[in-house]
C-alpha cells in the first residue's frame, strides 16, 4: 500500500479547488485584490502540488513541458498582441479605449484589462512551472528522506 494514501486522497480533493480558486482570483481581480500574477502563481502551485504528491512523470503527463514553453511565450504574445491590436485600431500602444471608443462605461478598458491579465496569468503560471520542472527533473525522485 502506498504510504502517502492520506496525502493522495486529500490532494485529489484540493487540487481542483486550488485551480478553481486561481480562476476566481483572476476574474475577480477587477473587484477585489488579485489579478494575473497571483492567479498564475496559484494555478502553478496546484500543478506543483500534483507533481509533489503523484510524481514528476504524472505531472508532466498532465501538463507537458512543451506546453509550458509555448504557454510562457503565448502569455507575452497575448499582452503584446493587445498592444498591437490597439495600434491597428489607430491608438497608442496599449490604448484600450480603442476597443470600444463609443462606450460610456469604458468597456474598451475592461476588454483590454481582461486580455492583458489573461496574458499575465499564462506567462506567470507557465514560467513558474518551467522553473519547477527544470529543478525537479534533475533530481531523479523525491525520496522519503528528503522530506
Amino acid at each position: 500500500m502506498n504510504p502517502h494514501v492520506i496525502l493522495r486522497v486529500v490532494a485529489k480533493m484540493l487540487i481542483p479547488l486550488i485551480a478553481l480558486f486561481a480562476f476566481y482570483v483572476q476574474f475577480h481581480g477587477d473587484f477585489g485584490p488579485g489579478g494575473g500574477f497571483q492567479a498564475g502563481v496559484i494555478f502553478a502551485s496546484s500543478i506543483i502540488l500534483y507533481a509533489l504528491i503523484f510524481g514528476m512523470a504524472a505531472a508532466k503527463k498532465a501538463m507537458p513541458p512543451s506546453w509550458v514553453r509555448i504557454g510562457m511565450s503565448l502569455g507575452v504574445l497575448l499582452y503584446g498582441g493587445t498592444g498591437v491590436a490597439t495600434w491597428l485600431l489607430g491608438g497608442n500602444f496599449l490604448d484600450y479605449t480603442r476597443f470600444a471608443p463609443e462606450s460610456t462605461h469604458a468597456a474598451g478598458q475592461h476588454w483590454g484589462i481582461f486580455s492583458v491579465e489573461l496574458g499575465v496569468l499564462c506567462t506567470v503560471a507557465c514560467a513558474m512551472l518551467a522553473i519547477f520542472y527544470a529543478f525537479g527533473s534533475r533530481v531523479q525522485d523525491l525520496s522519503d528522506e528528503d522530506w
Partner: protein
Amino acid sequence: MHLSPVLFLNIGLMAMLIVVAIAVVRMRSLFAIVMLQGVYSLLSAVWFVSLDAVDVAFTEAAVGAGVSTVLMLGAMLLTDRDVKPIATKQKLGPLLVVIVTGVAMFYAIGDMPAYGDGMSPANAYIGAEYIEATKREIFLPNVVTAVLASYRGYDTFGETVVIFMAGLGVLLLLGLNGNAGQWRAKPNGRNIAKNVTPPRKHIEEAEEKPKVKKTRKAAKPRVRKKS
C-alpha cells in the same frame, strides 16, 4: 501620544521579521533557511495587510511563501543540505555595506512625511489622481488593477517579459527536463591554444556537489556543417 493596537501589531510583526532574518543569517541548515524564508514571507504578507496593501500581501503570500519555497527546496535538493561556514573576514565587507545602507536610511527619516499622512506627496498627487480618474475613466472598483493593467500597463508588460525571461533562462541553462548542457564548444578551425580551460574536474568539484547521483549521458558527437 495615541497608542493604537495596530501600532503594537506593527511593532510585533517588525520584531518577528527581524528575528527571522537574523535566524536565516545564522542558520547553517539550508532546509531550515528555506523554511524560515517562507515564514519571513508570510510575516511580511501579514504586515502588508496591516498597511492596507492587500494586493501586495496576496502576491507575497502566494509567491514568497508558496511557490518560491517549493522552488527553493527543489534547488536545494540539487546542492548541499548545509552551508559551509564563512570566514569572519569575508563577512565584514557585506556587513559594512548593510550598516552604511541602514544608517543612510535612518538619516533620511527626519525629512520623510509621516506614515499615513494624507497630504504627503505620495498620497496627495498622482495617487489621489489615480483614485479619482479610475472612477471617471475606467469604472473599476479595484484601483490597483486599473493602475497596474491600464495606467501603468506598459510596466506590467515589462514585468511579464521579466518573468518570461526567467522561464526562458531556466530553459536555456537547465532545460525543462533537467538535462543541463554537456555539449562542449569547439573552435571551428584547428585548436592551437595550449591551455584552453583548467581541468574540468577541478572546477566542477568547486561548483556543484550533486548528492543524488545521476546517470549522465555521454556528450553526443556533434554534427556541424562546414562553414
